[in-house]
């Protein structure tokens, strides 16, 4: 499989801050790599290194085989960058913003105009095309910004926290847009603080914290790694929680956690337990409104990975 993004051992220090302390990133062509990490993890710095805006102190990176340090001009002709803070020109209209990029890329005015029209239409900005970006809402700015990074039809696209600060409805709209871009064949590196977002969009996830990779896996693989499956039971009658707890303890050997909503959850190693539990619940005469086996949420994964010192984490950089 051809690698669209390869980075090894990237380090970058700003004064006393070690923004990157040896980061490896890999994305196969046509896939979405989610780079997940809290604020200050080094996501933006990593993106800026890959997009030739920042020189790393050490390490190397290639975009579609072109070296970021040795051949930045070639890399720039392959990539599209949508930064963390929408970098649209507020004093220009939507159309003018896109025209500017098209003309800079050497398109003839007519072609640049046609491309701008296409993209505005595609991002649902046609009606706002003649207004200055200053008047746009947050979501519209993000879309215009993303459109601007697509003018040159890049094969590798960097999206730095594309939905931070958007409300949930707008976030899902943005997800749709990202899926479209990927369906078109581009490779996308997407950074996010939202586990839900990485889970929804990414083929692979690299978790970084304090400039280090602390995990790299598929969304499901990541969830598997971090502590098995969860069994959740909710008795119809909350008063029977005690009985359910006893059954669960007998079966799994561990006491379940009880939530405010009356759910009982415990870790299980073997999913063959599920039919056994059903039988025992029936025998005990405890009707349940919910009985499920599920993977831990990415939020739980993240907490496990970053909630303690990184060197204690069993998962090492992939």
């Amino acid at each position: 499989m051809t690698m669209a993004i390869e980075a090894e051992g990237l380090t970058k220090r700003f004064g006393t801050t070690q923004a990157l302390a040896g980061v490896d990133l890999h994305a196969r062509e046509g896939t979405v790599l989610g780079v997940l990490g809290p604020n200050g993890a080094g996501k933006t710095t990593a993106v800026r290194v890959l997009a030739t805006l920042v020189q790393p102190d050490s390490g190397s990176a290639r975009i579609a085989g072109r070296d970021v340090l040795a051949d930045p001009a070639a890399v720039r002709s392959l990539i599209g960058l949508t930064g963390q803070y929408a970098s649209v020109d507020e004093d220009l209209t939507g159309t003018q913003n896109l025209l500017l990029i098209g003309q800079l890329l050497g398109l003839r005015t007519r072609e640049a105009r046609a491309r701008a029209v296409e993209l505005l239409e595609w991002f649902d900005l046609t009606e706002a095309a003649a207004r200055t970006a200053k008047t746009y809402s947050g979501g519209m700015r993000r879309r215009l910004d993303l459109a601007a990074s697509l003018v040159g039809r890049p094969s590798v696209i960097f999206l730095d926290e594309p939905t931070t600060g958007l409300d949930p409805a707008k976030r899902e709209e943005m997800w749709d847009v990202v899926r479209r871009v990927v369906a078109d064949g581009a490779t996308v590196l997407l950074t996010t603080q939202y586990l839900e977002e990485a889970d929804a969009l990414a083929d692979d996830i690299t978790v970084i914290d304090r400039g280090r990779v602390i995990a790299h896996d598929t969304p499901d693989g990541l969830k598997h790694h971090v502590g098995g499956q969860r069994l959740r039971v909710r008795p119809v009658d909350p008063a029977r929680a005690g009985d359910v707890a006893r059954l669960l303890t007998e079966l799994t050997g561990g006491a379940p956690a009880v939530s405010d909503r009356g759910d009982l959850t415990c870790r299980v190693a073997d999913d063959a337990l599920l039919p056994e539990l059903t039988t025992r619940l029936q025998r005990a005469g405890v009707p349940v409104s919910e009985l499920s086996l599920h993977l831990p949420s990415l939020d739980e994964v993240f907490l496990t990975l970053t909630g303690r010192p990184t060197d204690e984490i069993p998962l090492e950089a992939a």
Partner: protein
Amino acid sequence: MTTTLTERAMPLPAATTTPTTSSFWRQAVVLARRSLIKTWRTPEALIDVTLQPIIFLALFTYVFGGAIAGGSQEDYLQFLLPGLLGQTIAMASVSLGQNLNADIEKGVFDRFRSLPIARSAPLVGAVMADLVRYLILFTVMVGVGMLMGFDPASWTGVLGALVLAMGFALCFGWISVYIGMIVRTPGAVQGIMFLLIFPLAFGSNVFVSTETMPGWLQAFVTVNPISHLVSAVRGMMLGGPVGNNVVWTLAWMAGLLAVFLPLAVRAYRKRA
């Protein structure tokens, strides 16, 4: 919007052409046009090359004119206008660095830097667009000056003065570009530029002739590039002797360009 996007199921627009490598100048012109659109949208950005010099011209002519040039305001206007032109060009360069600094702050330059274009194109584009501001300045000053009674000796001289002043502005502006690249905020650009410009603008022959000053100051005034520009412009506009002031001005222009253009481009490259 979710529904339209999903229902439409439209693929990304397919490639019609692959972008050709466009020349450096084309890119610079495109970026200059961007700056001009922005100026057009915010006309108050032109105050420093329109209202401000008019007010200076009127104030200095009518307040000091009577006292300075042997009591004749008309004579003083003749003397003052070319001088103020030189001073205003220096002052008006401040906004160039401020705008570039704001572009960097806002992340607009990140996009430019991630595009396959010449690294210095955004800087050169901004300087080119600034030239339009200086043209406005020149026209307004000479126009309003003539309404007030300014009487240039010849239009060829005025044209010569225009060319020299524009050339000087193009070179002097790189100081502002450089400062814009190295400081953190647009406000700081202004602060530093004023520190630099005030001695140049007032420690010059803009308002009074050099002979009236103490010797040590005369030494400064005679090397001051603004003084040379002003003397040259004055000579051309009023038909007086130009001397070697044009040569000195050109030498300064070359020097400023040789020092500050590479400095600015390097600072721009380094700025993360």
